[in-house]
């Protein structure tokens, strides 16, 4: 099989209201829109959930950002400047 194109890595910071299933919603959108969570940290800050994510994927990150912004529980999504690095990944075989 051909190697997949290298996946870019991004850091995203997301603030959400701590409603039921807030994290599940976030993770689901990330997965469905074609990204993989490489690292995740979550913290309760006041009335919000602060989530720092490192994501990998081949699709435009802006597309994920606008989908995350549509979630009712999301207050803000910040994309740290640009793709941090390019992660080489090859499919099995």
């Amino acid at each position, binding site marked *: 099989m051909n190697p997949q194109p290298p996946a870019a890595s991004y850091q995203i910071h997301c603030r959400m209201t701590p409603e039921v299933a807030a994290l*599940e919603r976030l993770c689901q959108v990330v997965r469905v829109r074609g990204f993989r969570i490489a690292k995740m940290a979550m913290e309760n800050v006041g009335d919000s959930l602060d989530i720092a994510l490192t994501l990998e994927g081949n699709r435009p990150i802006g597309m994920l950002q606008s989908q995350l912004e549509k979630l*009712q529980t999301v207050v803000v999504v910040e994309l740290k400047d640009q793709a941090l690095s390019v992660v080489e990944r090859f499919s099995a075989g």
Partner: protein
Amino acid sequence: MNGAQHILEAFHRHHIDTVFGYPGGCIMPLYDALVDDAVVEHVLCRHEQACALAADGYARASGRTGVCIATSGPGATNLITGVANAHRDSVPMVVITGQVPSALIGTDAFQETDMLGMALGIVKHSYLVEQADELPGVLEEAFKLASEGRPGPVWIDIPKDILLAEVGPAPAVHGTPGVDEVVDASRVMAMLKASQRPLLYSGGGISLAHAEDAFRAFTEASGLPGVTTLKGLGNAGKRAPNDLGMLGMHGSRAANRAVAECDLLLVIGARLDDRATGKLEAFAPSARTIHIDADAAEFNKLRPADLTLMGDLTTILRALTGEVQTSPLAISDWQQTCRHWHTTGGFHAADNDDPYAPIHGPAFIRQLSRITADDTVIACDVGQHQMWVAQYYDFDHPRHHLTSGGLGTMGFGLPAAIGAQFANRASTVINVTGDGSFMMNAQELATIRRYQLPVKIIILDNQCLGMVRQQQELFYNNRESQIDLDDNPDFLTMAKAFDIHALHINRSDQVRRGIETLLAYQGPMLLHVAIAREENVWPIVKPGAGNTDMIDETHRPRSNKEYVA
């Protein structure tokens, strides 16, 4: 007031007078409260999937929010397809399900399913109500969310104890003062003015935004030639001189050619779906793109836009109309070219002069379109018949065409027709279905009989899953696999079992009479139309190919090898 009564209060506040549901254990407190309610009509469908699809049809036909109700576990899981259908087509809907009592959640209780988790991907938003006092606020928010911006289904899962608990008063509702949007239409105008061959590409977003009138005023004032998506059919009205109809996989040669040759594409209320665009690299290759929508997430998702405008479509369209009225576009050559393409490459089904000839699906739909009144509502199912309706029926308004566009849900048509009939008891509502699709929600004949709905049903019966057969013929070397339905039940007897009048036709000379009889009949009626098994939808673009690579009947392969995927 208990939680269940609060739900009814919310219905009253939001002018919900019709809901579609099916009772069961955990939702029983709501059904108990319904006994004393004189305002809300509860429609008992015969399957929860049909409840959701009927609520969807109600919402599409009326422009209001549809409501469906079910119990926990199997009741709620049965709703899933209908809710997903509404989600994919951005239909405003509030879904209310009972859940096992709070203390039993997570214990694998009888009829416990995690609906919040299960429905995450098919809702605009969802709630599991954890505290009784949250309920009134959640209900308010849910109705607001379902219909504002880009609409969609909002699911509220409510544990039984909360339905029974005493709940404080509903929060006071303060309408947020509308802010007048100021639209800067000058950049759009500059691009339109600079273009020689501008083309309007409109979709279902027009009616979702209730922007039909504004859209029509803009098309008339601008004179822009236009193509529409499946869900946008009717946007321009049936007599619009510059409308080229549907583009895409089963679109007309005229529409696809106009897209291929335009130099500016003005996309309004459409999301550039793959069935409409075909292979993206070959789509409108020489055009700049302006994208106008209520949902910013649609911009640059599939095709980069040169200019985007997000906001209320009516406001934006009015601003654009003002501009083109002041400074008309000089595009008469392009208009003429498009009209010529439409004359030579639009959909024109010939009537068959041989009275004994078998009925031809497209010619039947063309005849139906000629005979029915302009305000007839057609609720389609999914398959070849759906595409023939899209190609050969002239819609005067997008709310007259109920079709499952995004999800393509077989079984949508009959419950959607029921919903549309409840939305307007006086209108003529016709479900055009196939023999496969009809059987997916045929139990709803019982709902039609119970409420004496004058819904008309037309089954275009080709004794097979026609759309799948067609693709097997064209793209799988004619290797038919699991598409035969030649052991269908006798549909006339079936209708009779539900006390529904039925008629069978199979010859060309019976078409007009058959349709007229159906329309004249006072109550519900089924018209069974036998059509040829081998009929195909033409033209067709192979999935993944560019829209200019259309295959039509003249290219029907003897050996289909050429088209093996």
